[in-house]
């Protein structure tokens, strides 16, 4: 299975990159070697097959969630990385998936 964490926002530029960089830094500090990429939500259905972890900003459509489940992609909220609330909790869960 593909090993990649993707973060998707409306343009694949600003918000998703902010979160992606944050996760990248945290991975680096914890010595986790795992690719992280910011992508465009508009092309999420093309991105999911090459991903293993999907971090969203706005809650995606049911259809997208179903596709993620079928592909075995773990889905996490990205907002904690912006607000700081629940950040460690979410991050730890992501780390667990990276170890799979």
């Amino acid at each position, binding site marked *: 299975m593909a090993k990649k964490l993707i973060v998707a*926002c*409306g*343009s*694949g*530029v*600003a*918000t*998703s*990159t*902010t979160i992606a*960089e*944050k996760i990248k*830094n945290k991975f680096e500090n914890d010595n986790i070697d795992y690719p992280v990429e*910011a992508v*465009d*939500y*508009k*092309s999420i259905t093309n991105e999911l097959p090459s991903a293993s972890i999907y971090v*969203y*900003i*706005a*809650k*995606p*459509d049911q*259809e997208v969630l179903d596709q993620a489940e079928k592909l075995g992609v773990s889905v996490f909220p990205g*907002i904690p990385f*912006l*607000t*700081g*609330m629940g950040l460690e909790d979410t991050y730890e869960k992501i780390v667990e998936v990276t170890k799979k």
Partner: protein
Amino acid sequence: MGAFESTIQWVLNLGSAVFVPIIIFIIGIIAKMPLKRAFISALTLGVAFTGMNLVIEFMSNAVAPASEALALNTGISLPALDLGWTGAASITWSWVYAFVFFAIQIVINIIMLTLNWTKTLNVDMWNVWGKALTAYLVYFVSGQLWAGFLVAGIQVIVELKLGDMFQKHIEDLTNIPLVTVTHPMILSAVLMLPINKLMDKVPFLNKKANTDALRKKIGIFSENSVMGFLIGLLLGFAGAYGLSGSLNLAIQVGTAMTLFPMISKLFMQSLSPLADAMSEFMKKRFKDREVFIGMDWPVLAGRSEIWVTLILIVPVFIGFSLFLPGNIVLPIAGVLNYSIAVGGLLLTGGNLYRMLILGVLFTPLYLYSATYFAPILTGLANTTGAVEVDEGGLITWSTIEAPEFRIMFAEAFKGNWLAIGGAAIFIALYVWLYKVMNAEKIPSERYEAINEK
């Protein structure tokens, strides 16, 4: 000229692809970033500037002859090249004063929070460029640098109060507690308000549409490559390029539109350690207090009404651009009008019919604003050398955000009495909007109740 001035001048003359990374490197060192990271961050910024220049040149070479052919073939002259927000942002970051606005935004926010004048903490440090753009626009038009900084300061305040007034609506639309949006694009709701009030009286416009199904059908059009392809194809045909030429132009415009966000991502990557440090600093200061976290608009991107509006307004936008007298802009890279879609969503609480009506009514405002903005953005690009514009060529941003606010205040500081009156009306409408949104029901409770009557 003294040694100091000549050194400064020499550094500025290096061009933005060298000069701005040096600033970022120095800021990084001051912020105690590890040397390696500060260097990579600075280098990425230089790469971003150069890459952006490359794509813009590529698009310009493809589109400029086509729009000349369009003018010859049809008499419709649309010479200003639309670079979209990604292009506008990269040019704005090359302005000497751009980085000062980090400090301005942070200081004003801290003061407002400390005095309890707002509940919103704006952690969106990326859109600091929006304040820099406002300041430059006002400075360019009025000739007064202080006026530019003043209006940018007003924008910081206005954004925070937007965050306050829309918070409960955004929480309802996204189901995420305590978040809000502080992006200036939603200022579009200010002028839309009177029309929305009129629409309250129309029974048909108080019904909810099911947009999820529609979004699935037309969602493909929101992909950058598809949108670019279609616009390129259209432009080719209108310029009598023939099938082969048109298809090639279509692929080229699709390429440019796909690459723009990829390059823009590099800016973000480079600036994110800095932006991150600043937003952490802010959050730490107000840790023990309940605040609304102000962020960029994508927190709302899960609402299908936004995407449906964005896509359905495109043909209207292009249609207007061809036929509106005085317009010089063909929407390309900025063709998706986020201001209309996101502002409309928040104002109407996700009522698609109203969003579309507002979209059609307000589209001309953006074209004329982009026409007005063209010499300004071109001027900035030429001064900083961020982008090479051909002699006599024009660049712009077809969906410039908060145009009414930016242009009205710029003209007001130039001493234009009409604009001074307009700015006063704008502020009055803004205050009205603030009251209306605070009193208004949250979106999920809005239209059903009216239906039952």
